[in-house]
């Protein structure tokens, strides 16, 4: 392999593994060299996922890298430091911007310090939180961290570690906001943050100077919980991550486990899953559209979107029995067979939705106020989208072709024809339009599938206790908000050693500061609506 030779030429002591993806293991001090070589010379400019892992005797980080031209041609980098008291690794924020928040997350949950990282604050937990939850020796007893109803002041000190010329590590501190700045809290309780996101916004009149996202108001510790659950048990947690694409998230975890255990699912299951995913995508985009309209002050449009979303929920309800969190996919298939009315209702829904889409364009897209508020606002270039790891409709609006369904077809996506909706502008309007066009594309997919659902079992027989063979697995699907990935590191037990969800939301929230600077407050709201993040998906 050519790349392997190149790497060995540069770093002779790098270890290679041929697992699901080619894996390179290096010493911490060599990591940055290797990373910058891969990023700058080999074109691995898309950091899919950054996972901190406690290997027991050492703390490490796993990087999943890909090329933006083909987001799923991946290579895995691994590094680890044995110093558990003061673990220090090198930051890769200068190569991939998306590493910023991900490294802060690893710092908050595992206590790994990243040298040269500009802003070492804990991402999800309070600064005073005792212990690092994702470490294996974390003491979870409630006495350590009791429930407190006293508000804690935020820490505004940006701590960063860097080398001096002599090679010593020094700590620097910088204030986040100056004393003169007019800082407004948007959130955690705010009607248009789509949950409990907290932005601290520095304002100059109506203009935004700086946005500091403060996350963790719905950090539920799902990844830690998964480590003590068996595989079938943890499925229901995925639905609650990004509850608007519940089916799709669960699909990702199920197919990751199925690949690892080598369970064959029938073609019928693939079709059912694909159709459910697409219905879910439409429902999610509809809600995203409605919420965006509401954020921009058009309440009637919100109600129209919700009205039509109920029609999809009816279809879900018939088959799955639930409205929002369906718990439908299971390992090896789906929970129940399709309801007899399913095909009829989907066939009724497709023309209805096509008709109603025109109405949406009339009521909102064509409106002169809406147009003015969305066009050339919050522009994200393609390079930025790749560097920040922005996928899904928001990435595609900037011209980043990142549709997993196209690049690495899973389930029944390989058997159907559909277009990847791409736009070049990268502004709020482009993001808005991509979302609406994707609804039409999803309707096309549904139309191709609904009449050809093959016969077969809806569930494969699985063992009562599922053990994944030792190794690391990564599976990604296209969720409604972008690339949703599941990383499982197994040691052969019935529960995973480390499980990480690569959520699209974290990248989305990391660009808010970038694209809303020097725009107005109203634009921040519109940008937030167009990014359409779901907060539990960010916080996990």
């Amino acid at each position, binding site marked *: 392999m050519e790349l392997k030779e190149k790497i060995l030429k540069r770093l002779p002591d790098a270890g290679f593994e041929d697992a699901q993806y080619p894996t390179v293991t290096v010493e911490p001090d060599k990591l940055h060299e290797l990373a910058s070589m891969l990023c700058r010379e080999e074109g691995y400019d898309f950091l899919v996922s950054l996972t901190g892992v406690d290997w027991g005797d050492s703390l490490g980080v796993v990087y999943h890298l890909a090329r933006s031209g083909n987001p799923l041609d991946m290579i895995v980098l691994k590094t680890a430091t044995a110093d558990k008291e003061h673990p220090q690794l090198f930051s890769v924020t200068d190569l991939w911007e998306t590493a910023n928040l991900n490294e802060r997350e690893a710092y908050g949950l595992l206590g790994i310090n990243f040298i040269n990282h500009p802003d070492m604050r804990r991402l*999800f*937990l*309070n600064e005073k939180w005792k212990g690092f*939850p994702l470490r294996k020796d*974390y003491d*979870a007893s409630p006495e350590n*961290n009791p*429930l*407190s*109803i*006293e*508000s*804690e002041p935020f820490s505004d000190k940006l701590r960063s570690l860097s080398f001096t010329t002599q090679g010593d590590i020094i700590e620097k501190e910088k204030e986040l906001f100056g004393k003169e700045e007019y800082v407004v809290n948007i959130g*955690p*309780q*705010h*009607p248009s943050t789509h*949950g*409990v996101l907290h932005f601290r916004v520095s304002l100059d009149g109506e203009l935004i100077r700086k946005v500091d996202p403060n996350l*963790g*108001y*719905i*950090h*539920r*510790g*799902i990844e*830690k*919980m998964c480590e*003590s659950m068996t595989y079938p048990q943890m499925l*229901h*947690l995925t639905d*609650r991550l990004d*509850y*608007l694409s519940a089916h799709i998230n669960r699909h990702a975890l199920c197919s990751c486990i199925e690949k690892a255990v080598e369970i064959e699912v029938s073609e019928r299951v693939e079709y059912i899953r694909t159709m459910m995913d697409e219905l879910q995508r439409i429902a999610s985009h509809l*809600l995203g559209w409605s919420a965006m309209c509401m954020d921009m002050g058009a309440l009637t449009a*919100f*109600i*129209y979107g*919700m*009205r039509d979303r*109920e029609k999809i929920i009816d279809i879900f309800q018939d088959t799955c029995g639930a*409205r*929002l*969190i369906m718990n439908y996919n299971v390992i090896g298939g789906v929970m129940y067979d399709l309801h007899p009315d399913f095909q009829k209702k989907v066939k009724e829904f497709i023309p209805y939705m096509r008709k109603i889409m025109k109405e949406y364009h009339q009521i909102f897209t064509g409106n002169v106020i809406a147009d003015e508020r969305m066009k050339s606002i919050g522009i994200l270039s393609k390079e930025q989208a790749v560097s920040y790891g922005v996928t899904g409709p928001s990435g595609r609006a900037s011209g980043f072709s990142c549709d997993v369904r196209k690049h690495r077809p899973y389930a029944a996506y390989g058997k159907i024809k559909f277009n990847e909706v791409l736009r070049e502008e990268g502004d709020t309007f482009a993001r808005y339009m991509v979302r609406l066009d994707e609804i039409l594309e999803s309707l096309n997919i549904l139309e191709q599938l609904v009449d050809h659902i093959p016969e077969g079992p809806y569930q494969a027989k699985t063992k009562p206790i599922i053990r994944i063979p030792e190794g690391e697995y990564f599976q990604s699907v296209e969720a409604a908000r972008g690339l949703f990935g599941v990383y499982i590191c197994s040691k052969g037990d019935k529960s995973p050693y480390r499980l990480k969800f690569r959520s699209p939301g974290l990248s989305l929230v990391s660009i808010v500061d970038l694209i809303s600077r020097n725009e107005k407050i109203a634009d921040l709201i519109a940008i937030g609506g167009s990014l359409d993040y779901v*907060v*539990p998906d960010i916080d996990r």
Partner: protein
Amino acid sequence: MEVKGIYIKGVKNEEFKDTEYLQKYYVEELQQNGSNIVIGALDDLLNWGRSNSLWPLTFATSCCGIEFMCVGAARFDFARFGFEVTRSSPRQADVIVVAGTIVYKMAPVLKRLYDQMAEPKYVIAMGSCAISGGPFCESYHVAKGVQEIIPVDVFVPGCPPRPESLLYGMMQLQRKVKLDRFLESAQKSKKRRKEAVREIRENDGKLK
């Protein structure tokens, strides 16, 4: 409306009271104990007004928030009950629907929101996360129910509860509001009131 045909292991069907339970027993019992006709009638008027105009705070943390939005939208439409004026400022809201998981970092915020609301204020805990931590009760960062932080008036179970159950919960809150004796309690001494409550509880025991 009589509730029929519920089967839950270990619970007798007869134990389920009908849905007008609160109003039927408590209100009638309270009035049996006697109240000044003018004050009682005024109280009824005030309670009628308050119970029919419960403005919720727009507050949602996770999944249940979507169902809360659905209740506000066209199919379920809680405007029918006069709930539709959702206020974003806690000062102007009457009821906070805690829709979703409350984590440790959110707990002080929730407490502050509750403190900022003007009396009389009510709390609905929507969904199993808000009731007990739900599926996340083993997590290191999730509060085991909002009643650890603020007092709760109505619990609406489900994960997430269907909009119908939220509507039922809100109607149950209306009934609870109708039990308040705003003027009467100001008139009666606290002791007498306590006695009345005890009596009702005893009667309630007999009814069972």
